[in-house]
């Protein structure tokens, strides 16, 4: 037994050492200095795009148009609020934030999707800015203690591989245009029913959207709402339900490259006309 505990002790000691090395060699440069907090480059920007996957598909294009893309798949307004809280410590008056505002993001479907376990880092682990009732499903109290023990904080794990060995987006490798018409209809119908049909606005999402508006007002940021484009088929379904949307692209509701570029041009145009 003594031998077992001696070996366990040294194994755990080695594990802690491994964590510290891992933090300084891999996690810090990849995650804290680049992937999550791109401190240096953030200071170079005065325009930011904050959205869920709809905006994440614009990655790679922002360099062209001076927009820092802060979007991530499955982010909801609580996540976006945390990001804007972080930006509020960095930005100056009249900096611009392009924010996704649409039925999809206000739907109660969004209450079930969140990256708060990762995005809490943007609040410097200050849980008090989030209402207690919205934290019920998450255990976040221990997160700040795990900064130097990254191998125990599994919420950041996937970023490492994505940063060092990026996987092409979309990861499933299909193109919407490759599908037959009936398959396209099926996909649209499935996603529409799952993510847009709920006309009841989420009180929680609305609350954090309002917090974003208040925060932006307080710091005098220019906040511009964006309705992300969707396919014709998708649009028709939504139009039938009197949502009223603009059709721009060929992918179901995510942006393909050409439409992403076109959207950036519109944003640029909007910006220069200001």
């Amino acid at each position: 037994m003594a031998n077992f505990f001696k070996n366990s002790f040294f194994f755990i000691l080695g594990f802690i050492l491994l964590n510290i090395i891992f933090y300084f060699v891999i996690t810090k440069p990849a995650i804290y200095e680049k992937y999550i907090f791109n401190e240096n480059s953030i200071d170079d920007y005065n325009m930011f795009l904050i959205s869920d996957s709809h905006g994440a598909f614009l990655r790679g294009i922002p360099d062209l148009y001076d927009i820092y893309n802060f979007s991530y798949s499955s982010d909801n307004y609580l996540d976006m609020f945390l990001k804007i809280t972080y930006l509020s410590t960095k930005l100056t008056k009249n900096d611009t934030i392009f924010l996704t505002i649409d039925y999809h993001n206000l739907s109660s479907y969004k209450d079930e999707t969140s990256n708060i376990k990762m995005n809490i880092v943007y609040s410097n682990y200050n849980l008090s800015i989030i209402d207690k009732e919205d934290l019920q499903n998450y255990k976040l109290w221990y997160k700040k203690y795990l900064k130097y023990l990254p191998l125990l904080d599994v919420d950041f794990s996937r970023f490492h591989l994505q940063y060092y060995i990026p996987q092409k987006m979309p990861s499933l490798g299909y193109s919407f245009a490759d599908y037959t018409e009936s398959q396209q209809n099926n996909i649209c119908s499935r996603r529409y029913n799952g993510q847009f049909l709920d006309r009841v606005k989420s009180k929680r999402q609305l609350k954090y959207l309002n917090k974003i508006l208040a925060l932006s007002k307080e710091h005098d940021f220019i906040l511009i709402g964006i309705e992300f484009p969707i396919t014709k088929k998708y649009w028709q379904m939504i139009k039938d339900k009197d949502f009223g949307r603009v059709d721009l692209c060929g992918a179901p509701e995510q942006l393909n490259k050409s439409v992403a570029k076109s959207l950036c041009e519109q944003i640029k145009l909007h910006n220069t006309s200001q």
Partner: protein
Amino acid sequence: MQFNSIEFAIFLPTVFILYWFVFNYNLKHQNAFLLLVSYIFYGWWDWRFLSLIIFSSSVDYLVGLGLGRTNIKSKRKLLVLTSICVNLGFLGFFKYFNFFAESFSDAFTLFGSKIEFSRLNIVLPVGISFYTFQTLSYTLDVYKRKFKPTKDIIAFFAFVGFFPQLVAGPIERARNLLPQFSRKRRFEYSKAADGLRQILWGLFKKIVIADNCAVYANIIFKNYTDYNGSTLLIGSIIFAIQIYCDFSGYSDIAIGTARLFGFNLMRNFAYPYFSRDIAEFWRRWHISLSTWFRDYLYIPLGGSRVGTWLKIRNTFIIFIVSGFWHGANWTFIIWGALNAIYFLPLLLSKKNRIHVNTVAEGRFFPNIKELIQMGSTFLLTVLAWVFFRAENITIAFKYLSKIFSASIISAPQIFPRIYMYILFFLIIEWLQRNKQHALEFTGTKYPKILKWAVYYSVIIIIYLTGNFATKIEFIYFQF
């Protein structure tokens, strides 16, 4: 409480320390402590269902005592029937009531009359199929006088509720596990260290392989109409790997955890996808359930020592019942029947025991014949898994018909990173196929630093490549 959760990471070391340092001076106290923590472990899901385990354990404990006190045949029969009725009654009610109600309703509709059965809104208690079979094995063995009934109520309750294998097996036999509660456990360094290695490998299988496969298997099976034949074939292969790593990963963690407490649980998987025929596959897949059905159903029915027709009947019975054990759905019954059809030619031609040794024993690579045998066996199991995974029979047939369509020769629509993980995993398993688990170092004299480097590497691989984003329960919890 899930094995791959923060809660369990705190629970296990705490229980381990209290078990060996506080309660180790008295066997009764140690057993009582194990019983208490096992109930806490189970109650973490839903404490209300603890009453079922306690009731089931109480009935079988009393039946066991009754069987030990009487030699009157009719009384013994009545006692064992009580145990069977209570245990299978619970299982039938919680797991199969809605299925039978709907099937009867459908059957009456076929004959023109309409009968409305109201569906019960029942939650299936986690692990009910596992602990029910475990406790039944006790009464059946006592009834057959293969095992003496125990008077130690704490030991018996701890045997039924032993937390490492309570919710998803291995389904232990009383004659293997119960005596281990009656003798003083000694801490063995090599056993505990190997237990930890087995837990680590189990976590790798679950988090890296199974949970990553789950993402793609779920997408492909859910949207099967959107994909071509080759992608659907890949989807079913990915599911085959997922279910193996998910379930055998759980078994590895369960067996490894039990070893930390000085217990030996039976092996549940023995590299089944390296089998050369279906008979060998079933000797290597979910061994604790296969042998349960063999001992308590197949052999009492006459086994294979009967005429040809009875052999066929017995084979179909155990495979179909085994399929039905997994869930109240016709898909599981078809899955079982399909495996019976695969198995029967081997049984009837008496070739069901020609592959009892490890494949390519003493060699590094298999020969061409073995490779073809393993490939074809794997493919047969993959096609059967389609029924196991599909939501209903119609979808399963549509899925299979798309696999066997012209689109099988078109390029797959999905190229995930998971292929590399699966390849890496299969190579490691192949190299270690003679061992109990792939991280076993027994009989080797590698320096400690090298072994530790392997453990740290596995931890880093789990961290970097594991799927922590999606919370995926162990598949067999639903059974």
